[in-house]
């Protein structure tokens, strides 16, 4: 039996997976990781099932140890991390030995960091998923002193793997598709929305994030009389003052505010990972263009597998460099072209 012990933990650390689809008709949104792409990255690095549960860490990690050797991977937001004082690279697999301390600090870039284990977290599923859904009362924020069961790592000495860093942690332009209420807004409002640069507000959580901008709001006529209707993650809804909120994984299933459009799923991780103050802009797609962006988890996994490669250690990360026999070493010859990890950048 493999146990994860939580020695200290930030305020927003939960168990997540890809969520529980199929309950919208009963008022329960799918939930799951705020950045699904990071879960697929971790599954690719560790060559595990997409459904393996992981720890999602909002802004701050914690101090963790395991009772038996297991490989881990850190994906999503870049967070300061070390094992017994030795820095841990992001987007790589690492061996965490029994009793070693894995310390994950604050985010350097992004919002939601993920800690995945080769055998997954094996807490009891609720409705076929281990995803914590705080607003639905499923699961809870992890606390100091808690332990969680993990699946065993069947190949702890497998060679370390690396995925390239993604550019989704800095805000940027996200693509929006038309929704059922897009035509409730005038052409002028839609155009002005597409020409505005927004900042991610500090106000936000797994349900959604608020956007700030200079200038007037983006209201519809008859704003307050619109009938409540079904919503999906990615919907951009306008409050009474015309302030946009983008809904995320743990949104409600029905809402009464009008929605100007829906961020396509491929760009939703970029929204979730935008740090407070990061700039976000919107590009409207036609329906056909939006549909063409859709990719199944399997397709994303195939693409990630193409990018996943064995990790060659950077000499700067080797603490006892002088203890190594360097002269007779063989390298692939392309070390200088490979992407490097610089903890200061």
């Amino acid at each position, binding site marked *: 039996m493999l146990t994860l012990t939580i020695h200290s933990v930030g305020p927003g650390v939960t168990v997540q997976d890809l969520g529980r689809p199929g309950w919208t008709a009963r*008022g329960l949104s799918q939930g799951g990781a705020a950045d699904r792409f990071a879960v697929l990255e971790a599954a690719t690095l560790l060559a595990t099932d997409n459904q393996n549960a992981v720890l999602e860490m909002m802004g701050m990690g914690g101090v963790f140890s395991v009772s038996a050797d297991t490989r881990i991977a850190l994906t999503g937001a870049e967070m300061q991390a070390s094992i017994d004082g030795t820095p841990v690279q992001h987007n790589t697999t690492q061996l965490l030995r029994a009793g070693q301390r894995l310390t994950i600090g604050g985010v350097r870039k992004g919002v939601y960091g993920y800690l995945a284990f080769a055998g997954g977290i094996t807490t009891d599923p609720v409705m076929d998923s281990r995803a914590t859904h705080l607003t639905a009362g*499923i699961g809870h924020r992890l606390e100091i002193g808690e332990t969680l069961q993990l699946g065993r790592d069947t190949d702890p000495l497998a060679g370390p793997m690396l995925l390239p860093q993604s550019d989704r942690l800095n805000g940027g332009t996200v693509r929006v598709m038309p929704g059922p209420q897009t035509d409730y807004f005038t052409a002028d409002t839609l155009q002005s929305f597409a020409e505005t640069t927004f900042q991610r507000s500090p106000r936000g959580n797994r349900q959604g994030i608020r956007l700030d901008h200079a200038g007037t709001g983006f209201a519809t006529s008859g704003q307050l009389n619109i009938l409540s209707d079904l919503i999906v993650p990615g919907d951009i809804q306008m409050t009474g003052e015309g302030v946009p909120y983008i809904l995320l994984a743990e949104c409600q299933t*029905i809402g009464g505010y009008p929605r100007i459009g829906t961020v396509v*799923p491929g760009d939703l991780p970029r929204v979730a990972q935008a740090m407070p103050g990061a700039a976000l802009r919107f590009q409207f797609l036609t329906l056909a263009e939006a549909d063409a962006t859709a990719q199944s988890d399997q397709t994303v996994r195939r693409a990630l597998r193409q990018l996943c490669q064995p990790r060659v250690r950077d000499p700067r990360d080797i603490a006892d460099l002088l203890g190594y026999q360097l002269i007779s070493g063989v390298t692939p010859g392309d070390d200088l072209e490979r992407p490097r990890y610089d903890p200061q950048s």
Partner: protein
Amino acid sequence: MIQLPPPEFRPLGVDGILVRFARELSEQANQRALAFRNQVDAMALPGVTEVASSLTSVRVAFDRELTDRAAVTRALQIACGKLDSADGSPKRLWQIPVAFGPDYAPQLAEAAALAGYTPEQAIAEIEAQTLRVIAIGFAPGQPYLGMLPPAWDIPRQTSLTEKMPNGALVAAVRQLIIFAADAPTGWRHIGQTAFAVYRPDAPEPFALAPGDAVTFRQISDSEFATLHQNTDTNGGATCKVLS
């Protein structure tokens, strides 16, 4: 009966189509939405993964690996054409006990007065209604029940009640809700049930389904206290499957 315009087909996500029967709530539009949801569910279309209804619309989700928007849209348009004969009658009838004593119904008198009734008249009218689950949402399993007679078209209060107990019966705009959200609300607290609409650890976590018929039966405060302590009966509610 008012003739509804043809339903609107709109995208809702790259894997979903929203079929909207009306932009304003009416019993007729709600019944069409519920009947359409049942019909599409029963058709078991290839690649369709979920069929969810709201007050006047239905979202059909599909797996893009198995089908596409055009094929699902065509199938839904055919289903809409057959809808006139669709059976919208309820499949189940619930009876749910409610306490209306002052401790359990702090805003009953206020809500009754807005509707032009004494509290006793209000209770009698609620007991006489067979309501329908017109939508489920906002919180997991939380039902919107309608429609009450026109006198009950009372607005939400402008101030918010910060904390509504689980199982509270609340009223506004010709509807009742059995409250299940941990959220402030503008709806008025007119009764208390011991009924849990959502139990995540139960084998069947959600009690009610859209389209279910619901009646309420008045019980005394002491009966409520007994039901509240006994967690086996789900608030003393009964459910009859209708043929």
